[in-house]
């Protein structure tokens, strides 16, 4: 029974998890290392890598600040409508990525509500980097808050009260007591947020316009190359993203193993 179940689980996971990973790397290297590197060294690929990093560098800190503010308000205070606020924060999780992009097209696109005004003022958001950033922020919106809220709720307010009775100011309390208490949970959330920010496809695809060298992120570049039947290059870029996923998983596992108690609430 035991062996049969373990075998079944491993078989299932091998077919659905391991096989795709193997496929990515084997396809990337199908024509040898030279072709693999050529695919990566392409200027458009490099520009996609740069854009992906830039977007993550903007979206993650924004959602980090939001996550900390939201969890401070929700976990440390009691106010009316808290569960509604919690549900609204989770909303982007239940919105199709395509819709996450669409909502900004409807606002800022050429036929969007603010489109004509933006065009007259020479500002382009859709089919430009700002739109890509917005869609990414939308999609990764709940990640940090999701991790921090249960953790901070579990930690309660006694530490903060102790700090304040000892004479600490609000900012000192936050910086010296709260922040160290949540640092690993915070890192955990940032890790997940970052993985999604760099890997988001659907939402970004709708707003980017797929302009090579300009608004193409790595996941979009994979699609373009793939649709051009340039499989080696497509899988070469994909392998970088797969590597990012593996690093994320390893870091996540390391965090869970090393600081299980300090992110435990977040893991539920």
């Amino acid at each position, binding site marked *: *029974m035991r062996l049969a*179940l*373990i075998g079944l*689980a491993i078989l299932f*996971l091998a077919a*659905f*998890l391991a096989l*795709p*990973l193997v*496929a990515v790397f084997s*396809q990337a290297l199908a024509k040898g290392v030279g072709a693999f590197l050529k695919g990566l060294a392409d200027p458009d690929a490099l520009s996609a890598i740069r854009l992906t990093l830039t977007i993550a560098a903007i979206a993650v800190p924004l959602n980090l*600040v939001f996550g900390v503010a939201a969890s*401070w*308000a929700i976990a440390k*205070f*009691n*106010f*009316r409508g808290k569960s509604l606020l919690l*549900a609204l924060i989770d*909303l982007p*999780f*239940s*919105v*199709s*990525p*395509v*819709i996450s992009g*669409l*909502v900004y*097209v*409807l606002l800022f696109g050429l036929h*969007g*509500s603010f489109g004509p005004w933006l065009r007259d003022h020479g500002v382009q958001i859709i089919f430009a980097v700002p739109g890509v950033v917005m869609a990414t*922020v*939308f999609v990764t*919106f709940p990640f940090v808050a999701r991790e921090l809220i249960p953790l901070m709720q579990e930690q309660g*307010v006694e530490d903060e009260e102790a700090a*304040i009775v000892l004479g600490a100011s*609000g900012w000192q*309390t*936050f910086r010296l007591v709260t922040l160290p208490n949540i640092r690993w949970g915070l890192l955990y959330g940032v890790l997940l947020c970052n*993985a999604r920010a760099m*890997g988001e*496809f*659907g939402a970004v*695809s*709708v707003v980017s316009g797929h302009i090579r060298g300009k608004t193409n992120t790595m*996941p979009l570049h*994979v*699609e373009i190359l*793939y649709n051009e039947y340039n499989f080696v290059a497509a899988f070469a870029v*994909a392998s970088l993203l*797969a590597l990012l*996923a593996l690093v*994320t998983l390893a870091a*996540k*596992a390391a965090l869970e*193993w090393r600081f299980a108690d300090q992110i435990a609430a977040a*893991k*539920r």
Partner: protein
Amino acid sequence: MTAAASTTATKPARRGWAFLAPTILPGFGTAFGFTLAYLCLIVLIPLGHMALRAADVGWDRFWAITLAPRVLHAFYVSFGCALAAALINAVFGLVVAWVLVRYRFPGRRIIDAMVDLPFALPTSVAGIALTAIYAPNGWIGALAKAAGFKIAFTPLGIVIALVFVGMPFIVRTVEPVLQDLDAEVEEAAASLGATRWQTFTKVLLPTILPALITGVALAFARGVGEYGSVIFIAGNIPAVSEIVPLLIVARLEQYDYAGATVIATAMMGVSFLMLLGINFLQRWTRSRHAR
């Protein structure tokens, strides 16, 4: 407890409706204000705006667009495949969670970490990788072709992509419940003469079921909206393997904003109902396991 008593209050007495419970911790205004403003700017206003745009279309056209055969079929494919994938995951996800919680074997930690791969792997990468495997010239696709059927470019391919995407939802929702489950309960059932199957169906399953349903609902909700991992393997043949998100993108590419908006809003409406359902299920789970 009279109003007169409050005249000597150190702070104005807050009787009845108070938005914020009294506290000495600072920073609520700033944190709450920022949270609300950011939430409105990024999420609520754009989503609300979309709903308004859909309303502008008018009731008749709204239904005409939604009920067009091609759109209806896309809804059918999206929801059907998502449900099928969620149910497959319910079985295998439960097995994986069970194995991870109950058994110790070499490589368990790596497998445990790998379960989250679908969360971490960009969907377009998953999409092309799954297509490479299940296309007629791929490793498994070739086997299927020899056996006389196709996986990629059919609804079956969509189901496979959604199984990949939804799997961690089930495992991660069920895992904590299994962890909390006392092995003694099973031993007690066994000592009372229950067979393994009876123990499973009468003791274990009722305990796990709420979490399992929640996991299935989450995977289902995610599967309905999924785009990246599906479009490569689906083949996107209208009225066969075309999903709703793709239809929205197609309408956008034809500059049919109204069509895209209506379809998206209809989908949001269904998703919203599902979200309510999940919340209800979670509450139900908690109340049944309140300790």
